[in-house]
């Protein structure tokens, strides 16, 4: 038995860091990823496609997305099992309720694990989030009631991974990995955490297409082959259509703003897709580096998202701190003030530039 697992596609999610055009393109990229998943299922002749939740975002989905999903799954040519998550929770207003699914699509609708027989002796247990939050763990009080091999399919937070998974991820339908075998399940196919995880008793496939920067790991769809004894063999496949890259560019020693642009252009010259550039380094006070100046330095990219990292202006603060002048007093006062580091840096550089007689470069990022 071969299953193709994916989760956390988050169709119709917003991309706040991007401009309107890039953001729209990114959302279409998510759809392309789903089409790739279906093509992968066809290529590997899997017996079923299973989705462990957060297929779309309930608060944002468009009718067009509903029709896209209906058509895509209808054309899958194989069973598709959907277990709604906290972002695509099942309710009367859900996309799931709106779509007239074809017979090959099976939607788990109960907030407890219910069984579907995939084959003789192989049972898939799935459940749905019925609310956006406060969903209890699906394994609590659960146990299989029949013989054979049992797989779980749901959207939840494995407790031991809450600490290192994405920051800010709230715990939904929590469960413990060691609880899985006690329920009689041989393996759990789960979604929610976007970082991929192939654990002994459960598998997080990760979000198949990048949702933000800094995502690492082998994310995508997971081909799960289930043996007769319940053992699983997992093979990960990248299905993303987008390239999202983080690049750090050191602009120390640049003599003017154009040199900073040149360094950025050189750093991203071989890249494609979307690149986030983080500038860092020590820059002479005379050099005015502005993020908006980096527009257009890499036309081959879909988007360049610049941001300032630890960019230090090369003032000799040690000397300034002992200077018995207004400038020295200003540096001492600001250094001793209760300010966050970003504000302190901006105030220092702004004040020193003003004292340097610079009139047009007083905005410090």
């Amino acid at each position, binding site marked *: 038995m071969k299953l193709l697992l994916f989760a956390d596609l988050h169709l119709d999610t917003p991309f706040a860091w991007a401009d309107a055009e890039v953001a729209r393109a990114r959302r279409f990229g998510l759809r392309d990823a789903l089409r790739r998943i279906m093509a992968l299922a066809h290529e590997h002749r899997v017996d079923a496609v299973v989705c462990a939740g957060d297929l779309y975002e309930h608060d944002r989905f468009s009718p067009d997305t509903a029709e896209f999903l209906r058509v895509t799954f209808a054309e899958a040519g194989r069973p598709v099992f959907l277990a709604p998550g906290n972002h695509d929770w099942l309710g009367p207003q859900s996309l799931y309720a709106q779509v007239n699914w074809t017979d090959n699509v099976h939607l788990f609708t109960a907030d407890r694990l219910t069984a579907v027989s995939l084959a003789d002796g192989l049972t898939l247990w799935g459940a749905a989030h019925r609310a956006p939050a406060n969903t209890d763990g699906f394994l609590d009080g659960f146990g299989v009631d029949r013989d054979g091999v049992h797989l779980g399919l749901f959207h939840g937070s494995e407790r031991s991974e809450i600490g290192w998974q994405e920051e800010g991820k709230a715990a939904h339908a929590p469960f413990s990995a060691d609880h899985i075998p006690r329920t009689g399940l041989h393996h759990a196919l789960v979604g929610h955490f976007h970082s991929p995880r192939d654990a002994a008793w459960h598998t997080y496939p990760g979000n198949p297409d990048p949702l933000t920067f800094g995502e690492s790991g082998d994310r995508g769809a997971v081909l799960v082959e289930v043996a007769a004894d319940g053992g699983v063999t997992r093979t990960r496949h990248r299905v993303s259509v987008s390239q999202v890259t983080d690049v750090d560019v050191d602009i120390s020693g640049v003599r003017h703003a154009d040199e900073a642009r040149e360094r950025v252009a050189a750093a991203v010259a071989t890249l494609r897709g979307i690149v986030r550039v983080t500038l860092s380094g020590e820059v002479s006070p005379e050099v005015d580096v502005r993020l908006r100046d980096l527009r257009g330095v890499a036309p081959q990219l879909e988007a360049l998202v610049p941001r300032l990292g630890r960019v230090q202006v090369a003032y000799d603060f040690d000397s300034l701190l002992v200077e018995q002048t207004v400038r020295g007093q200003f540096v001492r006062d600001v250094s001793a003030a209760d300010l966050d580091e970003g504000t302190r840096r901006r105030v220092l550089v702004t004040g020193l530039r003003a004292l*340097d007689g610079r009139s047009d470069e007083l905005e410090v990022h």
Partner: protein
Amino acid sequence: MRIDSVTAHAFGPLAGQSLSLAPGMTVISGANESAKSSWHAALFAAACGRRRGRGAGSREDRHFADLHRPWDGGEWRVSAMVALDDGRRIELDQDLGGRVNCRAVDLITGADVSNEIMYEGSPDASRWLGLDRRSFAATACINQAELLSILAVADGLQEQLQRAAATAGTDATAAAALDRIAAFAREHVGLDRPTSVRPLRCAVVERDRAMQALEDARRAHADYLDLVAHAQDLRARAVVETGTVRNAEGALKDLEALHGLARGAADAQAAADRAGERFAELSAGAAAATRVLAQVTELDARFGGRPPAGFSEAAQLGSDVAAALARWQAAEAPTSMTGQTSQQLRAQLAALPADPAGDLLVAESVRVTAVEWEGAVAVLAAHDDREPDRGLRSANAGAMDDESATALQAAIAAGPTSVRELAAALDTALHADDTTRRSWARVRADHEPARIEEANERAAAAEAQTVARRTAETVQAAEQTAMFAAAVTEANRRATTQPAATGRAGSRWRSTGGLGSPLLIAAGVLSTLGVVLVLLGLPVPGLVALAAVVATLAAGAVLRVFARRVPRPVEHFQHLDGQRAPAGHQPVIDAEFAPGQLEDDPSVALARRAADEARTTAAHAQSLAIQASSRVVFLADQEQAARAAAAQAEARLVAVQHECRERGLPCNSHALRMLAEQAEAAGDQEDQWAAWLHTRSVYEAAVQTAEHQLRTALVERGTRVAEPAEPVRDILDNYEQACRERSVQAQAAAGRGALQGAFADRLRAEQAYDTAERTRWSAGVELADIAHRVASCPGDCGADSWRAESDADLTGLGPTAVAAAATHVRALTGWRSQRDEQFATAQRDAEAWATLQHLCAGQTLVEMTTSVEQWTAAAAAAQSKATAAIEAAEMAHAERDLAADLAAGIAEVDVIAAADADIVGKWVQVARHDLADHRAVASTASAAAESLEGELRERARTLHSVPEAEEAFARANAELDRVEELSDTLKATSDFLTAAQDRVHRSIAPVLAATLQRWLPRVTAGRYLDAIVDPKTLQVQVCGPDRRWRQADLLSLGTAEQIYLLLRVALAQHLTLSGERCPLVLDDVTVQADADRTAGILDLLLELSADRQVILFAQEPAVAAWAAEHLVGGDHALRLLQPIGSE
């Protein structure tokens, strides 16, 4: 720190040359082309090095390199030997080209101490001073151009000080930096006002627009989701309604089947019932025939085919016997009588009295009227007990004296309300009169001092005007004199070809200028005294003192002009009284004098300022006089108004008192209020007495009415009245006594009726007794007669025994007769019993025979037996049919019940009631109606679902994208955050910078002032003794012995130069870390100065070199000459540079 030597290994035109420097003052002198500037640059480069960093250097760095790279190539390198104040000696070696081999080495320890002073990539000795190479250049290095720019520009000294305080002179002042920040904020942030088009307002507007768009998109999305859910509901409802229709159709079908079965079951049950009835009918017939046959058989056996014999006798005898017995038993023996006989009762009746005439009890009419009369009398008596006092007519009124009584009568006549109003008016008038009188007195008291003050102010104003006019005239005269002197000087200059000996002139200036100082001191003292007097409110003495100041200053100004310019001592100059200078006084003026210098003379300027102050004081005094006049007018108006108010109040008081007297009332508000209360109390008492009298008359009339009615009632009851005046009480008592007597008589006469009844009853009882006796005798006679008849009856009528008894004697009614009657009764009763038994037997036989005949009905016994057998066979056949019909009905019932059970699963079917086909028929009708309803509902639901589907498609087509709205909002928010962050940063920067500026200025100002206070008297030969520095602006003011403060940059150029140099020394020391002294490096600072100023500067530098190293680059020979003369000893040195060909 000091620099001991500089070696230019390769620097511009210099190669392998060294320059040693003295620890005190070193003058490095050389004409043009002697590499003086190169040595100056090499000195700086050797001490401070050059910035070393990645990338190209700054424009200044490049310019420095262009100027000072070695002309003949080679390694661009300089070095210097430096001595620190902590005793260390350091060799600084600067690789200016590669900027790699730069180091600082301690010459004693040999240690590389470069890291102590590394700044921007190379060792910088100024770091030991707490400076860097930029701030060292700005602080310790002074050139002539800088000096000139400071002295040539207004507020140049102040700005230079601010720049030094802000950035050690390297960059802008803090104020300029704050202006830049403010300008940047205006341009790049702006205000959040509706009319603003600056970034902040634009960002706010865009953020609000994006937020609104996001809310709209979210609301539309939520509405869309609601619509989706609603559509789902409608679809589900349509499906449900369709299912309901199908269920209704099935239910109708089942009910129709049930209806058919119910009707079949009912028909089968009817057939079964009919068969059962037929069986019962035949079965009963068979049983009846069998019973008749059995009875006929028994009767036939009893009579044997013959009828019975029957019974015959004289029926009349039996009846007579029975009647005789009944009459005897009815005639009972009478009971004997007891009690009074009728004759005795008749006698008692005759002895009774007759009934009385008149009332036995008090008549109701009399009793009612008597009660009413007694009540009216009691009410009147009670009312009399409550008789009130009679007010003024009472005994209390007599206690008043005549005057009080008169006043009270007047108060009663006027009425309490009017009296109280008069009292209030009297109080008001008295209060108003008192208040207005007090106010008037107070205003009068204020008015007089104001008039005196006005007169004083007017006198002071006139005096101040006079003083101001005289002061102005004095100043004008002084100016004219000075101008005259200037004209003469100009003429002399043109006529003279030989320049004046400036040394002599200078000495004369100093000698005669000495006369100005006492005058200035006097002017200072007088001006201070004048200002103090004015401030203390003594304008006239103050103005006199200020006028004296003006005169003194004017005199001083003229004296000073002449002291500078006139080659002979100045004669007496009398301007104190404002008189013009003597016409013949025409001083000869120094050829260097120019007319414009009069404007620069501080004494003249001070005189002018004093004149201005006098004019200002006069104007102020005039203003005070006008204010005092205004106050006098104001107080006069107030006094007039107070006087009018007092008169009006007094008139009101007189009017009120007059009215009191006219009404006969006292003019005292307290007495008036007492009279008002008394009048009010007297009125109340009169009212109460009148009310009591009125009530009593009413009660009295009621008594009279009641008495009349009682008298009338008594007469009507027959009471005799002896005379009309007889009291009604006596008449009533007589009537009641008569009633009691008649009652006793009536009770005696009342026994007649009962006695008459007893008499009648006794009479009737005696008559009844006689009648009963006669009836019983007749019955006994009849009984004896019938007994004879029975005894004489033949045949079987009786036996011999009772026949003998019938012979008893029945004559008479005595005991014998009664015993005989009893015998007859026993005999006749026995006879009659025997006879009745015989008759009954005969009667039963006759009836049985009749029955037999009836049962046979003409049939024989055999025929009757055959008929019974036929009945029995028919009954058996009917029983079989009935059994079959019942079974068929039961089967139909079972089928119907089964159908009912099935129908009950679908429809509301009562299984028990389903046995009734009519009920089921009604159910069918209801089910057909329900089905029609369900079909209509299902159709409506389907239509609604389809309609909403259409709306949903339309809504989906126009739905806005929520993520795009979120992204737009995020971008707008980010932009607003950026602008707000910029605003916050600029605001914080401005605040910090302002605070730093204030703090540093506050710390620097005393340092600068202290330095000037230390050096100023010495370098100005006592002309200026004190100095102050404004901590806000760092503006410097100095004053001489006269204590008049002057702005430092408005002083003469020489003095200003010296002050500036002193301030630079002070700043250099202030900016230098404690423990080190900053050397001064000066480049051609005297090149534009005249000999006096040059000498002054050099003298000052020499003085300063006692405290710190001074290095002066100069090109003028005069400086070299001065150095040769003054720089003696080991602490000072003169270095003469030789020209080099290619510099």
